[in-house]
């Protein structure tokens, strides 16, 4: 198979982009100066040093733990809800407008409600993360399910699949590319949401580090954390893309046939 994870060719182009991003960063630094953007080299050195410190690990673990739980909820729940809302017309028509409208309100304003429901601490952070990430997954899945070729559904009914089987064996594979688009957005937003949760109340976590850095106007640390998170998110995205490609390789449309 071409497109294996170790294939150099598929990494070349993203690496070129990454290099251009760093160059852009340098340019921004030249324009804006240290008080808005520190230069790439010292920032990366600072990041390296930060990661090396023993006190960094508990922060990372704290955020990681919350993030993983939130991610599981956002992805699992998102696909499930998406399939149900997309597959069952009435449920979808009833629930979708409510969900989307609620989602469109900046989550920060819902903070008191989250506090009310989940209290202070880990559950609230997880809820905050999941809340950010779940709707994109739901929307992408739901929309794809709604537009699934009706013949596949008819074939499923003719084979007497239960609703759950139809969901898992027909709707999910038929909509895999969209689900993965949703998952990619959902992944990133869950990460962001988890950190936002830490901004509000915390004693540990990347969000805590970020908040104190912002408070101190410690631009180098702010950027270091941003870079760390971005690299993580980009890596995860690339992995999701690769999985996606493998999973629907048969159904994948051929590249445009160029004259």
């Amino acid at each position, binding site marked *: 198979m071409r497109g294996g994870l170790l294939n150099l060719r598929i990494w070349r182009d993203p690496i070129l982009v990454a290099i251009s991003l760093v160059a852009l960063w340098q340019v921004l630094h030249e324009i804006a100066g240290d008080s808005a953007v520190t230069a790439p080299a010292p920032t990366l050195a600072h990041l390296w040093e930060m990661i090396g410190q023993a006190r960094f690990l508990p922060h990372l673990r704290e955020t990681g733990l919350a993030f993983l739980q939130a991610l599981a909820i956002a992805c699992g729940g998102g696909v499930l809800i998406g399939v149900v809302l997309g597959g069952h017309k009435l449920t979808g028509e009833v629930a979708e407008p409510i969900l989307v409208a609620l989602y469109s309100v900046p989550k920060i304003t819902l903070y008191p409600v989250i506090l009310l429901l989940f209290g202070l601490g880990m559950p609230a952070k997880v809820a905050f993360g999941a809340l950010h990430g779940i709707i994109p997954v739901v929307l992408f899945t739901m929309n794809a399910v709604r537009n699934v070729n009706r*013949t*596949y559904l*008819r*074939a499923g*009914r*003719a*084979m*007497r*699949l239960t609703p759950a*089987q139809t969901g898992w*064996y*027909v709707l999910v*594979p*038929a909509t*895999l590319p969209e689900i993965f688009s949703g998952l990619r957005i959902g992944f990133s937003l869950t990460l962001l949401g988890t950190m936002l949760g830490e901004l509000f109340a915390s004693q540990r976590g990347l969000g805590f580090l970020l908040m104190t850095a912002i408070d101190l106007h410690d631009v180098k640390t702010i950027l270091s954390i941003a870079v760390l998170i971005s690299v993580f998110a980009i890596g995860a995205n690339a992995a999701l893309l690769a999985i996606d490609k493998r*999973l*629907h*390789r*048969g*159904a*994948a*449309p*051929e590249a445009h046939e160029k004259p």
Partner: protein
Amino acid sequence: MAGAPRLAAVENAASHKVHARLEGVTRVYPPRAGHGEVHALGPISFDLRAGEFFSVVGPSGCGKSTLLDVLAGLAMPSAGTVEFEGKPVRGEVPEGVGVVFQEDASFPWLTVEDNVSFGLRRAGVDAAESKRRVDFAIGFMGLRDFSRAYPSQLSGGMRQRVCIARTLVMQPRLILLDEPFGALDQQTRLLMGDELLRLWRETSATVLLITHALDEANLLSDRIGVMSARPGRFLEIVETGWPRDRDSRLAERPDFGAVTARLWSYLRGESLRAMGQGTVAR
């Protein structure tokens, strides 16, 4: 396919004189985006006898696929009732019914092999038996070279064969086929027809076949329902009287042509009517 547990089917077929029954069935598509309601089918009343091979012919757009949907439980009749093996069919496909659709219904995310074994796996047939049936079906459908290919790598006719295989491996007691050979060349059609006949004989399944080829309908069927232009009704149900033990050599019989000619004569007017009609409410 061959040599599979078919005793159940035989018993079942024997115990029901009538395998499926339609009574006063009509289907009207409700008005929708840009078009008024369409009275597509009926009223139709007829019995599908247990173990018979029944074909339906009729002009394009007359309601054949609609009839199949209603019979399979994929669509609810607007009026009337459908029964299968004595139990009412209401919006759900009964166990023991297999359907091949007019459209390409192969799952593009599965290989040919996985497409064919899809229903078996869901039904919990054990792996060895499943593999045996699938291998046989794939080989018989001429897809052995492509068992690991995906549908996007197949020609139109090959995809249609995948769908036929997927249904037949399930060994349904009532097989509903909507122009299953539409994208196949005539020689392949004949081969498939013969094999379908053999299968039908061996399993005593009941078959309802929608086809456009009158010769084919004639050759394969015990009875042939000729449908009118929309709203589809049976103008006539022709009994062929062919022996159960028949194959494509039947076409050489002198009385064979007479039946085809009779179908022709019924249909000529209906097709013209279907193409030129201007009577239905917008």
